[in-house]
């Protein structure tokens, strides 16, 4: 109540004068334009490795472009990004994707391993050999031998926070609005995995040091490319 009274006391009238405009002190760069993004996706590693914000610097441009359109068009859901992207065009999103793709931020130090040797063994098998019985190809067959992604549409699996990884698998497996509203190769694979495998992967991946560049597109086997054609078609994407 007191608060309201003191607001009322200070309801003053009259309008402010427009101020003289200062000459531009702002640089005409994309870096300046995308300040709203770097508040969450910056290189400071804001709240430590457990933060939820995924890194986007250095990821393949086609992948970033697809995700930006997914967020804008409601195929992947995160409110803060949906609002920011609402009025941006494909052309501008492509430019933003190339910009972040070209950045080289330092990666966080690998996390300490908290898995038993048996669990580690199981994860490494899944990653490098997959499970033919369940039609799960090796993760590395698509994400590259070093798991640093395959240009231009398949992202790296390294340098991502544990909480973020767990949430992505949750999104794919449960369907819903978070991720993978439209089925694709990755959501199909995620659905075939057990909860234990997901937990172990989300623990193991952040323990890996990031070394090496993303693999070239030609490295992807034709049958895997076919499996992911909805993503790899990347309509509107140009280098």
């Amino acid at each position, binding site marked *: 109540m007191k608060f309201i009274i003191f607001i009322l006391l200070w309801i003053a009238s009259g309008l402010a004068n427009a101020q003289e405009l200062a000459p531009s002190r702002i640089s005409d760069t994309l870096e300046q334009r995308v*300040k709203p993004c770097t508040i969450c996706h910056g290189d400071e590693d804001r709240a430590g490795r457990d933060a939820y914000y995924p890194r986007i610097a250095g990821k393949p441009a086609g992948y970033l472009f697809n995700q930006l359109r997914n967020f804008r068009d409601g195929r992947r859901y995160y409110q803060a990004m949906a609002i920011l992207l609402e009025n941006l065009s494909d052309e501008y999103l492509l430019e933003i994707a190339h910009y972040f793709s070209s950045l080289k931020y330092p990666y966080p130090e690998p996390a300490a391993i908290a898995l038993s040797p048996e669990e580690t063994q199981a994860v490494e098998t899944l990653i490098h050999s997959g499970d033919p019985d369940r039609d799960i190809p090796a993760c590395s067959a698509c994400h590259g031998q070093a798991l640093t992604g395959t240009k231009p549409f398949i992202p790296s699996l390294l340098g991502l926070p544990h909480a973020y990884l767990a949430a992505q698998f949750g999104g794919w497996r449960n369907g819903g609005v978070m991720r993978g509203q439209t089925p694709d190769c990755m959501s199909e694979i995620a659905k075939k995995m057990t909860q234990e495998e997901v937990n172990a992967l989300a623990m193991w991946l952040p323990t890996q040091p990031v070394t090496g560049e993303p693999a070239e597109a030609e490295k992807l086997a034709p049958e895997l490319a076919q499996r992911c054609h909805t993503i790899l078609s990347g309509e509107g994407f140009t280098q």
Partner: protein
Amino acid sequence: MKSSNKFKFVGKRQIAVFAASALLPLSSIAASQPPADPDTEQAQRGAYLARAGNCMGCHTTRGGKPYAGGRVLKTPFGEFVSPNITPDNETGIGRWGEEDFWQALHYGKGRDGSYLYPVFPYTEYTKVTRQDADAIFAYLRSLSPIAQSNPPHKISAPYDNQFLLFLWRTWYFKEGVYEPDGSQSDEWNRGNYLVQGLGHCNACHTPRNVWGASQDDKLAGGEIMGTYWYAPSLISPREAGMGEWSVDEIAKLLSTGVTDHAVTSGPMATIVRQSLQYLSKEDMRAMAVYLQSLGEKRGEEAPKKTSPMPERVSKYLALGKPVYEKHCQECHGKSGEGVPGIYPPLAGNRNVTMTSSHNTIRSVLYGGFPPVTAGNPRPYGMPPFQHIIRDNEIAWVVSYIRNTWGNLGSLVSPEEVDASRGNEF
């Protein structure tokens, strides 16, 4: 091999269509319209007018097929789902004739004679001429039909009642094509026609009563139903009245989304992106001429004495200063001067000082980019602060910018910050 497959597919479809049509009453077969040619002059004019009316904005879901409907519009009366208006026979308006379309746009009546809900702004579109309506219809009929059925509206009782809707219409709906005012120029009349008709600026910029009806035809500003955005008055010089702006500057704001002094955000940025940026130079100028004439001038207001600031107030404002310096100053400047065309000034900014603080709070909570337009293809953006600083810091900094550099506005409490959180996404 490939072509024979295709042939089979077409064959099956034709059989299916044939079988389906055999089951339909004769009348609806007769009413089904042949597809229209998109290249006629009429259809092309219709495409332009549909932009001016932003039909696509409501009749398309985020990332969905244009004009196939399915967008959910939240209001206090329930959730409305926009229908498919592509010329698909089963799920769209494929069986509609020109007269059916006129009944909808001009009278707000569905093809079966039922009353349509005024979330569809026929209360404004009623001003559109028959010739323009026919052109829009010719355009819609030239689109490829898209088979998409959308979920039904979820309207809360008692608003789901046709009789109530009938009463509402009797009280609040004035049917009638725009009548030019002979005492004004052609340009002004054209602007008035666009603003009050297809542009449906009234749909947001008027005060609403509890029945969701706009209070009168005046663009006096109002809270947009179902969101926490406030669409400011286009008359008052304390809000967004443009009586003291040049016609060029008004046209620039509405066609590019930014000027040296102002910026469009939220729902207004969306309107600029989806609709206003496509208006021809002449139409945009006409709109600006009309808007300028609507705006009241500040005139010779005697400079009012401001009472000395109570100590508690200055203490409260002082809390906002460090927040501003840490998080805002790099873009909006030491004295709130902004950077022309890039970052809006906060000093002397009516969006910041107007009575409703909703938009300012929302800008700080959610940030945003002005719309991408031909005139501003690579806009600079504002970060969202909802996860960066706490609600009480947002209240401090908003109170601070409303009362510094000559700005004067009421103070904002942390409760108001929380109450401004939106739910459109």
